[in-house]
């Protein structure tokens, strides 16, 4: 009489694994090394993983696409226990000898060690970022949440910039001492500054420092006069815009294209009243998109 799952014929075992839910598969993976390897062979694909750091606690949210979209959450504290939030209930799983790092490493090993989004909400110290980096060696997006200091923001960006394609900063600790241009000059693929309550103050010189391929600021405070001067600098062609392909600014005041493009020759694109094409003498083009509360520059 057969009673052990692992004694089933390989095909049947595989089909059984493919029929299991993510949380059940993860539970199975924790039974032994063999079951961990088996769980990896399931055809269930984890669509995205969000990791959130809150002091010494790490939450992992996994999202799976299937017949039903499913989301499960693990809350990993220090020590051999962790919480699984599935449905309306919270279960506590315990594995003797496991540390927080072991739990995280185990979960990540089931999905190529890559988290989709790493959210740094609150860390006990800047030194703790090194631990976070060890735990999450790969991430697509880094998010630095609102209540973080300039020191932590600076440290987090420098540590994770090479790992993450996109950096989103929700805090705004910039002032005259800690200038925003320090961040804008970073060489990242996508940089998003997002703070609704505390607008990002910008000057022409800050914009000229922009070095990310895609830069988006929500909400920015910059005068229309400086925006106009920014376009004029580009038109003169005496300044090189190496990296940016697009700079998007959501503003704290209404603007019009006449204000932004005053004194500059332009043409409306495809008859649209929001998109304008500018041509420089060297043949380079700039698209300027002007909405009521936003402006974007696309360097062609």
């Amino acid at each position: 009489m057969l009673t052990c799952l692992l004694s089933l014929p390989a095909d049947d075992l595989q089909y059984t694994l493919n029929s299991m839910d993510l949380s059940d598969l993860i539970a199975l993976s924790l039974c032994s090394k063999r079951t961990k390897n088996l769980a990896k062979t399931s055809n269930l694909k984890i669509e995205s993983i969000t990791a959130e750091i809150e002091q010494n606690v790490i939450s992992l949210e996994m999202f799976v696409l299937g017949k039903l979209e499913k989301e499960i959450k693990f809350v990993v504290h220090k020590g051999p226990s962790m919480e699984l939030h599935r449905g309306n209930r919270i279960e506590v799983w315990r594995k003797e000898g496991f540390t927080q790092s072991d739990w995280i490493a185990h979960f990540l090993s089931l999905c190529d060690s890559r988290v989709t989004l790493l959210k740094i909400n609150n860390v006990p110290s800047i030194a703790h970022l090194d631990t976070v980096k060890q735990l999450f060696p790969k991430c697509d997006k880094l998010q630095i949440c609102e209540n973080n200091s300039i020191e932590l923001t600076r440290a987090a960006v420098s540590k994770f910039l090479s790992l993450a394609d996109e950096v989103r900063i929700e805090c705004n600790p910039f002032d005259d001492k800690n200038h925003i241009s320090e961040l804008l000059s970073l060489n990242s693929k996508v940089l998003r500054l997002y703070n609704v309550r505390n607008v990002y103050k910008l000057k022409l010189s800050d914009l000229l420092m922009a070095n990310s391929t895609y830069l988006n600021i929500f909400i920015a405070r910059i005068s229309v006069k400086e925006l106009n001067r920014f376009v004029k600098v580009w038109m003169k062609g005496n300044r090189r815009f190496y990296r940016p392909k697009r700079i998007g600014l959501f503003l704290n005041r209404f603007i019009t294209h006449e204000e932004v493009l005053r004194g500059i020759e332009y043409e409306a694109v495809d008859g649209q009243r929001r998109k304008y094409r500018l041509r420089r003498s060297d043949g380079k083009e700039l698209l300027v998109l002007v909405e009521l509360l936003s402006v974007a520059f696309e360097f062609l």
Partner: protein
Amino acid sequence: MSSTEQGTSSAAPAEPTTAPESAAAPEVPESFYYVHGKDKVVHKVSAGALQHSALIHGMISNLGYTEEQAKANPFPFENIDGDILQMVVDWCNQHKGKPTPPEDTNLPKQKEKLFDLVLAVNYLEIKELLTYCCKQVAMMVKGKSPEEIREIWMIPTDAEDEAAEKEAKKRAGKEAAGETAAAAGDAK
């Protein structure tokens, strides 16, 4: 459309029930075959029901048995317990000529029976039933913790796996040594 007979394969199987009333065109009489498991209990099953099993369907196609020959030579499945074969036969009869539903709730809930059914269905190559069985196996651990899963599915710990691996290596070594000694003896 089947009957189960206690005893040996020589026992006369029950006649099929009368065919349903039909229109002018006479129906082709359905052919029947006979199978038995470890307990030698013979089950009479229609060819239509047996089509679910790729293995038996292949055997029937190759043998070209007449009704009499089929009666005299039931297919023996000595590796399948009688009650499990009964379940399989019942399922094949219930789903004869019908599209299979997305779920089957009549499968055994006991682990031992379910695992044995999986093995039997795998051997008989009944794809749809195998799908249901594997889903049912997966359902056994739905919402369970790792410890509960280990208990339900009797999953060995890492230490037990390592011990078993050592034991297997030891045995393989002994067997290899035995073969070498035997070969040396033959050479002398």
